[in-house]
């Protein structure tokens, strides 16, 4: 029996094909089989699920390419199940988790564990990255080929930079053998030292040890030199400084296969968010100066920054309700990714399609996923949303197990109304 879902009277948006038109869409057995302005001109056929879109936007579901789900290991902060509910409510239909779990995802058994849990929960699509080095210790490269065969989408040491240049060279070179993606948290830990926020006047006034902005570009530039030596595919995560964005801009111009992303907090906030020692705004890399924030926006506009990822990093109260230097780094982001990304549209920096592309087509293309676009044969992982609906972010309403967000009380525009994975409704806004 074919399972059919019809979406009628939708504003169809597909960044990958630059599509923005009113029409209908038909999904059969979890795949998009047809769409167009005249699809249901002669009436809606007999379907299992009829979705009246009432002119709202129907777009590919968001793909969040940088998420920490804390399972296995830290289930008191988040689980695959709670993260899945948070994702669905945020319009995210696929997320990719970092390997910094306990145990580390450096073995196919852990990749298979994550996949099995996702199958059991049957909500959003959950992928993972494999560790780039065993135990993320920066010394021995992992079984990348086998890990990729079992489903790892790329390789990274998570929230740690791979610092040893020789290991990085071999990792890039070996990954290229199989055409695999190497992802770096680009920050030189020796330059970070005991720093906890952006170096500058504010850090000096707060008496907090600073992290110089160059700590990021030093690692990015080193990696780009290695990439020009080895070839292969390199992705820099959550860029936050003007200098590193410039470095990637030049490397792209030079023809290197490099991509990068940023997180919403790097274009929606600057270092002033940590005034008063607000640990909810403590992140790694740290929130930067206003000039850097503007450079992130520019990088998104000119395409240097390919994608936006939430960098979802749940932490319980005990990890955040501490003196600033002791508090953990991280912000939850699955449920705020859509409205914060849409701020770029509402503020006139990007078109609606451009903004959506940063969280759909771009991550799909970097990760070589079949989703993230509306075309015949693609998975019917879809998001029905209202780009203009105003609401206020409320930490009480997060579905995530943790509520560490500096965006609490922020008025935003744009809300997920209904989320679908393979045609199946996994979330409906009340």
């Amino acid at each position: 029996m074919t399972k059919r879902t019809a979406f009628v009277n939708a504003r169809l948006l597909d960044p990958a094909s630059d599509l923005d038109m009113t029409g209908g869409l038909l999904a059969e057995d979890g795949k998009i089989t047809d769409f167009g302005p005249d699809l249901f001109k002669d009436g809606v056929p007999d379907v299992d699920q009829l979705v009246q879109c009432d002119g709202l936007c129907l777009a590919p579901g968001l793909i969040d390419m940088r998420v920490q789900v804390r399972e296995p290991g830290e289930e008191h902060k988040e689980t695959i199940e709670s993260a899945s509910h948070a994702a669905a409510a945020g319009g995210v239909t696929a997320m990719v988790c970092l390997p910094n779990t306990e145990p580390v995802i450096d073995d196919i058994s852990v990749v298979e564990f994550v996949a099995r849990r996702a199958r059991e929960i049957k909500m959003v699509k959950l992928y993972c990255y494999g560790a780039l080095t065993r135990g993320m210790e920066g010394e021995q490269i992992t079984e990348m080929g086998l890990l990729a065969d079992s489903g790892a989408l790329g390789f990274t040491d998570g929230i740690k930079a791979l610092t040893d240049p020789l290991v990085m060279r071999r990792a890039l070179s070996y990954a290229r053998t199989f055409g695999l993606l190497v992802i770096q948290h680009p920050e030189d830990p020796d330059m970070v030292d005991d720093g906890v926020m952006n170096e500058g006047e504010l850090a000096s006034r707060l008496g907090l040890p600073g992290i110089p902005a160059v700590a990021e570009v030093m690692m990015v530039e080193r990696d780009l030199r290695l990439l020009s030596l080895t070839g292969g595919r390199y992705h820099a995560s959550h860029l936050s400084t003007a200098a590193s964005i410039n470095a990637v801009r030049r490397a792209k111009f030079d023809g290197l296969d490099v991509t990068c992303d940023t997180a919403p907090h790097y274009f929606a906030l600057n270092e002033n968010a940590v005034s008063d020692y607000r640990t909810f705004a403590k992140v790694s890399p740290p929130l930067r100066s206003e000039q850097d924030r503007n450079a992130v926006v520019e990088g998104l506009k000119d395409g240097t920054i390919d994608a936006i990822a939430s960098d979802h990093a749940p932490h319980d109260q005990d990890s955040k309700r501490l003196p600033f230097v002791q508090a953990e780094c991280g912000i939850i982001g699955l449920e705020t990714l859509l409205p914060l990304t849409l701020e770029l549209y509402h503020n006139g920096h990007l078109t609606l399609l451009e903004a959506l592309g940063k969280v759909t087509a771009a991550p799909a293309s970097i990760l070589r996923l079949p989703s993230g676009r509306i075309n015949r044969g693609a998975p019917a992982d879809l998001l029905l949303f209202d780009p203009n609906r105003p609401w206020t972010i409320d930490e009480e309403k997060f579905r995530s197990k943790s509520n560490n967000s500096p965006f609490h009380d922020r008025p935003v525009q744009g809300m997920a109304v209904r989320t679908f994975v393979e045609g199946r409704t996994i979330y409906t806004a009340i």
Partner: protein
Amino acid sequence: MTRSQTAPDFALYRFPHRHLLGIDGLSISEINSLLDLADAYVAQNRQHDKKSDVLRGRTLINLFFENSTRTQASFELAGKRLGGDVMNMSVSSSSIKKGETMIDTAMTLNAMHPDVLVVRHPDAGAVKLLSEKVTGAVINAGDGRHEHPTQALLDALTIRRRRGRLDNMTVAICGDILHSRVARSNIYLLTTMGARVRVVAPRTLMPAGIERFGVDVFHDMRAGLTDCDIVMMLRLQTERMRGTFVPSTREYFHFFGLDREKLSYAKPDAFVMHPGPMNRGVEIDSDIADDINRSVIRDQVEMGVAVRMACLDLLTRGATVN
């Protein structure tokens, strides 16, 4: 002017704050209130009968998460001279690591109804965080490299009593500015009060963006000391340093240690301050530290008790008035 056993008239002093967490943000009149009242307590402390009953029935807890001898003793004496009950608690960072968090410790103490908590902590912002969780007044006795407000107040009182004013004084703060909460509190206080502040240090010991603190920045002692009224030396805080900031104490003393020759660039009547404890032969020559004509280091200790009495007095009476 001051009578033993009788507290100074509260109506003369305005300090509308629940806590004293830092100098940053205080107004000229608030600083003057604290200094004026401290002046009165200096006189009281020099009398045969030093005790009053301003804090009678009140409980003061000194909660120190970082070792301290002089600041803790100074607060203890200040509390006792005002007739309060004083308890000292030293919490080493190792016992904190055993499980109980700083907030837990604070909540436990809070249940004992202290009127004032005097807190020192190795992390910047920790005292503010603690102040949000307790019901009594909190005085910051030093948090990381952030602030040490009573030190700046006692330094200001020392200067004011020597020179009769703070405005238009030129003060050179020299040494480990980067790691110093004393330097930050002094910069805020002195610039607020209209003094000209210079900071003098090798570039590795200068905080980023210091030029936006309203100070003049020098990297040469002789240039920085030229024609200044007051030389404030800071301790080289090797315990807060990770890695090398200066190559050796010998080289540091050669270029940045205060000796008679470098001091000769300051005004002839310039005096020398140090928050203690001193590293003799590292940032200051013993010859100067012990010269009672140039060094006011012992005055500073005396002013410390009076300033802390003034802070305790204003915060506890403020709580009553409110």
